[in-house]
């Protein structure tokens, strides 16, 4: 547990928090972690860091909830999902004209188009508002689970199972891409 705090935790915090809160808060954590590493050692500083991250979650979530910031994030996440779903349905209709529906080729192509669309939608949602990217991942996960439960013979089961696992991963990849671009030196502000 020694050494520097893991980058992914800082990125996750920056993804979940608004810009004006994320930058100073993560910077403060890193600064005090470095101070504590020098004064109390790497292991103790690392423990302090994790306690701070988990201890900060409740007050920050409560603050976001009280101030309605989650409403906008969830709305944007739903919008991104609606656009992605409409694109996938349109692609399904178009491909059904040239390929026999529910075959491996048809389902495979829809899968490629669908996952690409989800990566793009996740990227755009997180670019507009980082919290929307997180909401989008949750909505895609929920929608995949619902779709799997109500599968009635349209698409093969393997297609729904792959979508259930790869859909949220694709959405998260799009959000991570947006955060990575944002944090890159000389990247977006």
């Amino acid at each position: 547990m020694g050494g520097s705090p893991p980058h992914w935790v800082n990125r996750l915090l920056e993804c979940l928090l608004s810009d004006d809160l994320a930058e100073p808060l993560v910077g403060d954590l890193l600064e005090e972690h470095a101070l504590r590493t020098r004064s109390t050692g790497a292991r103790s500083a690392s423990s302090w860091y994790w306690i701070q991250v988990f201890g900060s979650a409740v007050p920050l979530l409560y603050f976001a909830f009280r101030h309605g910031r989650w409403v906008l994030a969830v709305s944007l996440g739903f919008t991104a999902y609606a656009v992605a779903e409409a694109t996938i349905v349109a692609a399904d209709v178009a491909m059904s004209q040239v390929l026999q529906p529910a075959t491996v080729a048809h389902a495979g192509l829809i899968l490629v188009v669908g996952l690409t669309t989800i990566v793009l939608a996740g990227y755009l949602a997180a670019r507009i508002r980082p919290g929307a990217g997180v909401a989008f991942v949750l909505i895609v996960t929920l929608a995949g689970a619902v779709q799997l439960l109500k599968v009635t013979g349209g698409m093969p089961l393997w297609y729904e199972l792959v979508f259930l696992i790869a859909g949220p991963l694709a959405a998260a990849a799009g959000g991570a891409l947006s955060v990575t671009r944002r944090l890159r030196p000389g990247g977006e502000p």
Partner: protein
Amino acid sequence: MAKRTDFLGSLEQIVMLALVRLGQNAYGMAVRMEIEKRTGRNLSIGAIYATLERLEGKGYVSSFMGEPTAERGGRAKRFFRIEAEGMRALRASQRVIESMSVGLRKRWEAT
């Protein structure tokens, strides 16, 4: 008598007193460490920022971003300062505590 809305919660008062003590160097980590040093309470940085944001929403404090530094992974500090309205609210809250405490010293010593 101050308006009811002027009274601050205990954490709000503690954070604002830390801002007064720190003056120009009041940013999240410094506030957190000042409170820990003086009260022994190891508050989370999230609780500090949630309180500061709430106070800023009430117009009691304002904030501005500093320059990014290498020790913070290239991230800037966010400095906070108390506005006149915030100072009034802090004084009013302190006066309430002082008024309610008058004459209670003997009782506390007896318990």
